[in-house]
């Protein structure tokens, strides 16, 4: 490893970036290079220090000198004084304010500390209904550069070099997709945006369209120029009324300002954009189905090739990109591909937005550099498990994804690593589950969704998912058979290999990953008729351990079936004939006195003389 004499921690919080951090960084890099110090002094970008009003700020280690209100003009002086002559540059030195606030700063709170905002750069900062505010934060500068200074080939090259991959799920390289479409000759081409977001639990795209609609539009204008399209549609589900409203306001403002329509920004380029409201079927998020849906037909996928780049909407060359993909395009145009690659990994550069939910402390919308370990997302950003809960699995990618166990928490979040695990990155839903979740039931929940949403065109998908669902239902209701696990796996692989679209090709993932990582749970359901989590009602018995019970009576009061008896301060008991296996007592008991046993235990643990004990 290289050894540096000093580290410069330059603040790249929103406040400092707005007052010029990036220009300072360039000036610093240049000056250090000029003085041949670049091997000795390392410049690192950090999160907000809580002195935004004095920004841009930076600190130098190991000297622990803090500089404020940096300007490009002062940088040569500062470098000369501090790094050549070895004395702090008094003029810009920062004096700690007298009274410090007791409120923690972003660097002290893991939820903020590990996040880096690119896609969400305007999150919580601008009024999404005012184009001026977007412009004030460098909005439409990327489009202006692309339209006025760059050729279509140049745009495609920067996007290709950046390594940007589609955020809609599959991770297809965006630059490549654009290149295919740009090379096809046609009188008409279409640039489309996918804001369908149909997977349960996901809300990244909705949030982005609501908070920063212009970022999506700007990406579309740049994409349109790259492929040579003059008409575009944003496909948004009608269940997202606020997103639709804000996008429409943004589009209207763009027409007013000459940023959409003819001769955009006086560049000679024309692009028209409309919103298309989808009716909400999950399969309409698939690209060929989405295009059929805009044509006014029933949204059903069709075989590829021909790919949409050749024959897409109304059989014309078309490019469809996800909301999050498009929202980062202008940044790449403005800052270049090397900048983009400064975060993330070789094959998965940049950042990814996740909707983090489940039994963790911080539920929310987050953006992290790719390559970050799952553990950091769950335990640092997510603040760890809710009090007293034990981690069991994290579900990624919704109905197309899978459940990953504790042993995989060191996995780094990149397209390649996640696919290897059997899950998929998907659009970014991440649900953390604890040991109150039954993995067979979880797989069943997603299969229920997929079987319902299958458009019915392919037999393996339509019938196959239904059979998977039936087997899973049997297992959870006590009718599991010896070879069910093998049948589930064989059928899953058949569905994956013979379905036309991504829905069928990924629908079995929840089944396959839960079998792969939680096979013992399937076996307990099938062989011992035992759902260890106590979720499958036919496969569990709730039993009070009389040694542990101190007779607090909490469960007795909570039980909706009045199935619990006992005197104060004496061990309580559950009348199995009355118990409806609702888990309430289990979750109520603060002394962990209630066990979950297999269904058979009901027979051997009968409470006899009911009336006598009441």
């Amino acid at each position: 490893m290289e050894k540096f004499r000093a580290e410069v921690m330059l603040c790249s919080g929103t406040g400092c970036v707005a007052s010029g951090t990036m220009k300072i960084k360039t000036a610093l890099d240049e000056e250090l290079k000029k003085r041949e110090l670049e091997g000795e002094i390392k410049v690192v970008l950090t999160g907000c220090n809580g002195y935004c009003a004095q920004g841009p700020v930076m600190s130098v280690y190991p000297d622990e000198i803090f500089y404020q209100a940096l300007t490009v003009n002062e940088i040569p002086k500062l470098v000369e004084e501090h790094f050549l002559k070895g004395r702090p540059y008094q003029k810009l030195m920062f004096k700690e304010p007298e009274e410090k606030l007791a409120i923690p700063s972003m660097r002290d709170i893991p939820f903020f500390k590990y996040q880096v905002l690119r896609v969400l750069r305007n999150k919580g900062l601008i009024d999404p209904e005012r184009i001026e505010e977007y412009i004030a934060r460098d909005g439409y500068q990327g489009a202006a550069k692309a339209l006025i200074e760059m050729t279509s080939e140049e745009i495609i090259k920067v996007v290709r070099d950046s390594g940007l991959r589609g955020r809609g799920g599959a991770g297809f390289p965006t630059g490549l997709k654009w290149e295919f479409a740009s090379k096809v000759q046609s009188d008409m081409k279409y640039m489309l945006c996918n804001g369908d977001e149909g997977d349960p639990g996901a809300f990244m795209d909705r949030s982005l369209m609501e908070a920063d609609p212009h970022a999506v539009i700007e990406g579309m204008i740049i994409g349109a120029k790259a492929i040579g399209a003059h008409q575009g549609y944003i496909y948004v589900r009608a269940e997202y009324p606020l997103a639709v409203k804000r996008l429409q306001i943004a589009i209207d403002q763009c027409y007013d300002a000459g940023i959409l329509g003819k001769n955009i920004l006086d560049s000679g380029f024309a692009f028209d954009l409309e919103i298309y409201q989808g009716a909400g079927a999950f399969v309409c998020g698939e690209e060929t189905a989405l295009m059929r849906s805009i044509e006014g037909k029933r949204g059903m996928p069709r075989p590829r090739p021909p790919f949409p780049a050749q024959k897409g909407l109304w059989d014309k060359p078309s490019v469809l990109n996800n909301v999050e993909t498009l929202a980062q395009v202008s940044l790449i145009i403005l800052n270049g591909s090397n900048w983009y690659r400064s975060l993330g990994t070789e094959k998965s550069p940049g950042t990814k937005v996740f909707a983090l939910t489940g039994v963790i402390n911080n539920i929310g919308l987050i953006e992290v550099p790719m390559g970050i370990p799952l553990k950091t997302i769950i335990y640092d950003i997510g603040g760890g498990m809710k009090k007293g809960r034990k981690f069991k699995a994290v579900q990624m990618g919704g109905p197309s994804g899978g459940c990953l166990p504790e042993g995989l928490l060191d996995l780094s979040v990149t397209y390649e690593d996640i696919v290897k695990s059997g899950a998929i990155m998907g659009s970014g839903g991440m649900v953390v589950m604890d040991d109150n979740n039954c993995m067979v039931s979880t797989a069943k929940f997603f299969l229920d969704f997929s079987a319902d949403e299958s458009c019915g065109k392919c037999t393996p998908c339509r019938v196959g998912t239904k059979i998977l669902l039936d087997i899973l239902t049997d297992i959870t209701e006590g009718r599991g058979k010896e070879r069910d696990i093998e049948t589930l796996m064989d059928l899953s692989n058949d569905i994956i290999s013979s379905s036309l679209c991504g829905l069928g090709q990924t629908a079995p993932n929840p089944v396959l990953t839960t079998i792969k990582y939680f096979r013992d749970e399937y076996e307990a359901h099938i062989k011992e008729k035992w759902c260890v989590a106590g979720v499958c009602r036919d496969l569990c018995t709730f039993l009070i351990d009389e040694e542990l019970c101190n007779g607090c009576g909490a469960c007795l009061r909570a039980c909706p079936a009045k199935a619990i008896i006992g005197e104060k301060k004496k061990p309580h008991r559950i009348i199995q004939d009355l118990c409806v296996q609702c888990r309430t007592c289990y979750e109520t008991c603060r002394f962990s006195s209630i066990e979950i046993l297999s269904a058979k235990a009901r027979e051997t643990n009968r409470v006899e003389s009911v009336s006598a004990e009441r």
Partner: protein
Amino acid sequence: MQRLKIEDLQRIKEKHRAEFTLREGGYRAKVTVHMGTCGIAAGARTVMTTLIDEIAKAGLEDVIITTSGCAGLCAREPMATVEIMGHPPVKYCDLNSEKIKEIFKDHVIDGKPVEKYALVVGSETTY
């Protein structure tokens, strides 16, 4: 709005940047209420109307209120950010109309952040 040319982008940027930094904008304070779907569901609108009432009552002209999208921590909505000129922004969470009144009085008017409702001071890392 007139049709924009590329020079205009720069001009608008400079002009409205002032509102962000407050420094040149002639404002002393800015309050942003986060109104994404989850914020609104949690009651952000009540917080907003209370705030507008308070400002009208106090007759302040050097304070701007604005809305913005999701602040990212859905479980702690409604959230608002208060920024006083020369000080880093402070984010408040789990708000209701009582709390925002107190924050308005102590922080916006008297310049003293209300520590008990504050989540964090500063702004996010962007790069």
